[in-house]
């Protein structure tokens, strides 16, 4: 059992032949995968509690991260290329666990926006729509 620090976490994106780390990430999040259910309640369900069952599908959710955005940086251009030329992309997340293997997922869509403020550096928010599921450690 360990409490993992986030400093040193590496998120990699596929650029052509290579999986390479995304630069200048300040934070990241996965908004949550969810197994899909359906209402299985019937007229003869006993008790007051509604019943649910599994459809057999799960939503992969979205993975997002914030970067200090450098529009001249090739790695960041590779991200915006996914906006101008939509394509699926494989990403890897490697935590700081001593025995960490990469958790992989494929993005089908991307959201990209950037913000500037007087008291901060230029930042961009990237949101990735996961197709399928993130490959969790088991």
């Amino acid at each position: 059992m360990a409490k993992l620090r986030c400093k040193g976490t590496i998120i990699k994106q596929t650029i052509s032949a290579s999986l390479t780390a995304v630069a200048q990430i300040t934070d990241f999040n996965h908004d949550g995968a969810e197994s899909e259910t359906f209402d299985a309640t019937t007229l003869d369900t006993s008790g007051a509690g509604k019943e649910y069952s599994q459809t057999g599908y799960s939503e992969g959710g979205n993975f997002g991260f914030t970067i200090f955005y450098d529009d001249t940086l090739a790695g960041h251009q590779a991200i915006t290329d996914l906006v101008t030329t939509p394509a699926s992309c494989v990403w890897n997340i490697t935590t700081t666990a001593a025995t960490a293997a990469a958790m992989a997922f494929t993005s089908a869509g991307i959201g990209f926006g950037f913000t500037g403020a007087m008291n901060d550096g230029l930042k961009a928010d990237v949101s990735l729509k996961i197709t399928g599921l993130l490959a969790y450690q088991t």
Partner: protein
Amino acid sequence: MRSDNGVAAAYDTPEYAEQIDRSSGQPFWKLGAVVSVERRGAQLLVGNGDCEPADEEAEQACKGWREKRPDVLLSREMLARAIDPEDRERFRNGEILGYDENGNDIPGPNWIEPDDEDTEEDNE
């Protein structure tokens, strides 16, 4: 190709098997692996410091890469060592080389001892 670049799934094929290192359990390119990529891919990979042109065609696609190489490699090294954006200036200055397994600074040749005020701020 750098040896800390993972192999994209589309390239994890028998054609490239000799150039892939699997000793870590994950496929990584061997140092100096030569791969064939499309023009934009070459520009991004070279621009990101992941690889260098291996033939004339790639050189043409990545004009000016030699002039930018020192800056690109420095940035790529910071990426490989997961240097925090706020610590990049300290890395450039040689104050730190990276972080140890507990996330503490590894002092560089120009290491500056933090004064008490800095330490107190860090602890807050």
